[in-house]
Each structure stands twice: as structure tokens, then as C-alpha cells.
């Protein structure tokens, strides 16, 4: 059967491949960062708390060290 849609099919599936590749990359990275590990429930408790104050500005505009 003749496929009349080859142009858009190849273009859209190129996009799908890029998006799927990006999703695989970041998914593996998130697993390495512990998002599916035993300590992955921390963010749901932390998000309920209001920050009493924000970290003071660091010298030379550097960001404050991150907390787990």
C-alpha cells in the first residue's frame, strides 16, 4: 500500500524520537538521583512547609549549597 504520509510521518516521528530519547536520559538520571529510591518521599513533606526566610545572598552571587 502506498504511504501518502511519509513527509509528516518522518518529521513527527523524528520529534517523537527526540522527545523519547530525552525522556529516557532524564528518567535514568532521576533514578540515579534517588527519585525512585527509599528516600524519595522527602519532597512531599518539605513542600508543606513555608520557608521562614530565604538564604542570604552569597558572596560574588554564588548560590547557597544545596540541601538533600
Amino acid at each position, binding site marked *: *500500500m502506498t*504511504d*501518502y*504520509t511519509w*513527509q*509528516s*510521518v518522518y*518529521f*513527527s516521528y523524528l*520529534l*517523537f524520537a*527526540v*522527545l*523519547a530519547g*530525552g*525522556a529516557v536520559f532524564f*528518567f535514568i538520571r*532521576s533514578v540515579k*538521583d*534517588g*527519585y*525512585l529510591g527509599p528516600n*524519595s*518521599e*522527602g*519532597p*512531599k*513533606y*518539605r*513542600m*508543606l512547609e*513555608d*520557608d*521562614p*526566610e*530565604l*538564604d542570604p545572598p552569597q558572596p560574588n552571587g554564588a*548560590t*547557597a549549597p*544545596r*540541601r*538533600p
Partner: protein
Amino acid sequence: MATNAIRGSMAAPAAVATPEIHSDTTVKWFVLGAVGYFAIVGIIALIIAAKFVWPDFLGSISYFTYGRMRPLHVNGMLFGWLLAADMGLAYYIVPRLCGVRLWSEKLGVATSVLWNIIILSAIVTLLGGYQKGIEYGDLPTPVAVLVVIAWVMFGINIFATIARRKYNQMYVSTWYLMGTILWTAFVYLTGNFATLLPGVTGVNQANLTWMYTHNAVGLIFTPAGLAIAYYFIPRASNTPLYSHKLSMIGFWSLAFVYVWTGAHHMLHGPISQWLQTIAIVFSILLLIPVWAVVYNFIATMKGQWHQLNDNVSLKFLMSGTIFYLLTCFQGPMHSLRSVNAIVSKTDWIPGHAHMAVLGTFSFMAMAGVYYVVPRIFHTTLHSEAVANWSFWLFLIGGLGMFTALWLGGFWQGWQWNNPSIPFIDTVVALKPVWMVRFFSGIMIFSGIVLFLYNIMSTALGAGQAKAELARS
């Protein structure tokens, strides 16, 4: 329970008592603008609904013809109201989840100004008949270029804020919002620019357009809406999310599955069978992320359902969750070839789309707006009673509209599948359905007006409330 009631209510006790950490100027600009456009475009929606019942209504005035009103309604609701509200709420959520201030309030306000220019340009051009004629991609190319510029400004601000975050592990809403920004870039460029490339005509153009149109809902409004719900359900109920791990599974399964589904709008059309089959398979797989999301939300509310009595944000959020379940069950089911043969191109489809964009994601955005506005203006909601009225008008009007369109669409499809019925008879037969939609639309529009009145009164009355507080 008392603490929950206070925390979840429209009051902002913590914000009044503590020094100002976030200025939220950008949030105010985006949210108030979005609410205003919601009301303006609501009028357009009502005119369109009236035209279905009385086709000659305003018919001789070119600006009010269906061909100009419909793109204005679609683009106004998508970009003027919902995306603007989602962006405003993202500017509220991300700095708080990251424990830092927004990277640049000036850039945020500039983005808002540009967004207003875009919406006003859209109103002028679409009413004037200047449009590309592509579903959801009607905006003339210069206006679409401005959308891209505004989106880049929004993305830089949000990603720069996330890059400076205080905490290493990000909450799931942050993941969804990052996904929204990246996916929108792909999806919007495809729908608004790739469809115009030389040689992309006919079925080719339709294929790309449906990839854009379906993913505009699935990869722009779905992740943005879920980011909002994942933030505001725990915050409004003061209850931890049931499972952060499950929420991440839902996020990644959505990331893998959603992008492949757009071609299910072209089933039985002149496109490859294998392309149709892939779209069907991935549409069924959508049940995985949907189950992960809905189970998480409902499990979070276990033992907390009583809070719905006096918490309008939660009413909107949990109703939106039920609509999300319904619309995401409906989507995979009508992707099956046998069901699609009946409902495709009928009123079933706008019923389905309205349940997604209005019933699910607009409900979630309204919940966020009701939660956020009293807090960013350091005051209390103008009227809890009016907020409750707006919710019930939205819910009853929405249910009336969705149900009428589903039943009418099915009926319409059965008639279209019977070649002995003249087409015009199928049009006449649908008039009672469109009458129900019109009167449901009046209820929904009344809900929008009350929502606008309540939010604007809260914002404008904040200064007066502060003065009274200072005097006392």
C-alpha cells in the same frame, strides 16, 4: 482538623503574620490578566453556543460570524485564560518549592506585558479575519513568533529559578512544569511553523496538526494542570501527598506515552494503518499515568474528604480530578476503531475536549487562583459564599454541557452511519442538544462572572483591608 480548616481556607494567616519573602508581582500580573480574559472569552463562547441554536444571531456582522468567533474562543481560552493562569501559578509554585526567590521579577513582568500584547493582537487579528486556519494554530505567524519569544522568556526565568534551588530533590510539580516548558517548545513549533513548510499540505499537514492539537492538551495543559493539582491538593488540605514515588512513575509514563497519540484523530482517514495502530496502542497505555495520578490524589484525600465542606479550592481540585479520570477513560476508549467509527467528528469530540480543558484543567487553575490570590495580596477572599456559588454554577453547567454533547454526539454518529438519513435532518435533530448547551453555557458564564468579581474584589479590596488592619 481546625488547623486544616484554617490552612485550607481562603484566608492567608501565615502570609499576614510573616515578613514578605516573595514579591509575587509577576504572579499578580499573570493571574489577574488571565481571569479578565476568561470573562471576555466567556462572552464569545456564549455567542457561539447561541449561534448553534439561532444561526442568524448576529449573522450579518462579519466580526461576529462563526468563522471568526470560534478561533477567538479557542485561542482566547487556551492562551488568554488557561495558559496565562498556569504560567502565573508556575511563577508562584516554583520559587516556593525551590526555597528561593524568582530569578527575575523584571523579566517576569516583561513576559506578562508581552503576553498581554499577544492576547490583544490575537483578538484584533482573529476578529479581523486574519488567521492561518489551523486548529489551535490560528494565530497569524507574527503573533505566533511573539508567543515563542514570551515562552523563551518564561522558560529562562523558571529554569534559572530551579537552577538556584535550595533543595536537591525536586517535588513532582517542578518536574511537570519543566516538562511543560520543554514539550511546549516542540509542540508549538510543530503546530504553528512546521505545518507551514513547503510540501506540507493535505494529509501531511493534517497529521502534523493533529500531533500538535492533541499534544497541546496532552503535553502543555495536562502537565501544567497536574503540576498545579500536585501542589495545591496537599497545600489546600494540609495533607502530605500519598506517594511521591507513584507521582514520579505517573510523570515518566506520561512523558513516554503521550506524544505518540495524536494520530488517533485521523482513524479511518487516508493515513497509514500502522500509524493509526501505534496511536491506538499508546492511547490505551495512557491509562497508566492517569491511574497513577488519580489514585495518588484520591489516596491523599483519604480521611480528609470532610474538608470539601468549607474549602472551595479543594472542591475545584477534586471535581477536576474526577473529570480528569472521566476524560482520560473516554479518550482511550474512543481511540478504538469501532467506537471511533461512531463518534469521530461528532459533538462527542467537543464534549470530550471541554471536559479536559474546562472541567479538568480550568477547574485546577481556578482552584489555584482561589488559593493564591488572597495570599499574594495578604488578605482574605472577598466572599466564600460567592466562591461556592461559582463552583456550583461551573459544576452543574459543565455537567449539563458535557453530557448533552456526549449523548448528542453518539446520536449524531449513529445517524451519520445510516446513509438513508439526509445530512440536514441530522443537523435539525441536534437542536435540542445545542439548546441544552446554550443554557448550560449561561450557567458556566455566570460562574465565570462570579469568579471574576470575587477575585478582582479580593485584589482591589486588599489595600482597604490592610488599612483597616492597621487602624485596629
